């Protein structure tokens, strides 16, 4: 089961440049931490795929096991786990997030 879930997650993060696993949807986040990451990405003008873990309990647990990370939101760039809300905020404030996105060739829309 876990293998199938991992495959599904891997496929998802491989097929989008920027993927955000969050509570709620980008247009209507249902948690302050998820909302903050949406705001950061919007501020940077980066298109991203939002995936609502509240709609899928297996995924909600599966994504935590996948990354060995106990909380949501989780941001992935080009298949790589970048971090949760604290790390995203820190990297945004220091300019590292923009650098990372640039380095990965992800352009603002």
């Amino acid at each position, binding site marked *: 089961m876990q293998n199938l879930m991992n495959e599904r997650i891997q496929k998802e993060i491989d097929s989008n440049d920027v993927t955000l696993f969050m509570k709620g949807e980008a247009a209507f986040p249902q948690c302050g931490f998820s909302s903050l990451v949406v705001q950061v990405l919007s501020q940077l003008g980066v298109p991203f795929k939002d995936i609502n873990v509240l709609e899928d309990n297996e995924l909600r647990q599966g994504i935590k096991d996948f990354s060995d*990370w*106990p909380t949501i939101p989780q941001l992935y760039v080009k298949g790589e*786990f*970048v*971090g949760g809300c*604290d790390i995203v905020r820190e*990297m945004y404030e220091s300019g590292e997030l923009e650098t990372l996105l640039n380095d990965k060739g992800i352009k603002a829309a």
Partner: protein
Amino acid sequence: MGMDAKEIEALIQEGIPDASVRIEDLRGDGDHYAAYITSASFEGVSRVKQHQMVYAALKGKMGGDLHALAIQTSVPK
């Protein structure tokens, strides 16, 4: 339900013995905390790994008993 700030501090301290740990109760409600952790063991370690070390010290309480803990890690200057 929630956790005591002292309890959080003790767990992190136990898991990362050389760390200096400061906990802030952000809303005074015993539920929303920020933890500032400085440790030489973070040197050369990615941010994700640093936070994972803190989560490991919290022994699975993060995301369970502890729902809102902002973490900021740093290396001593």
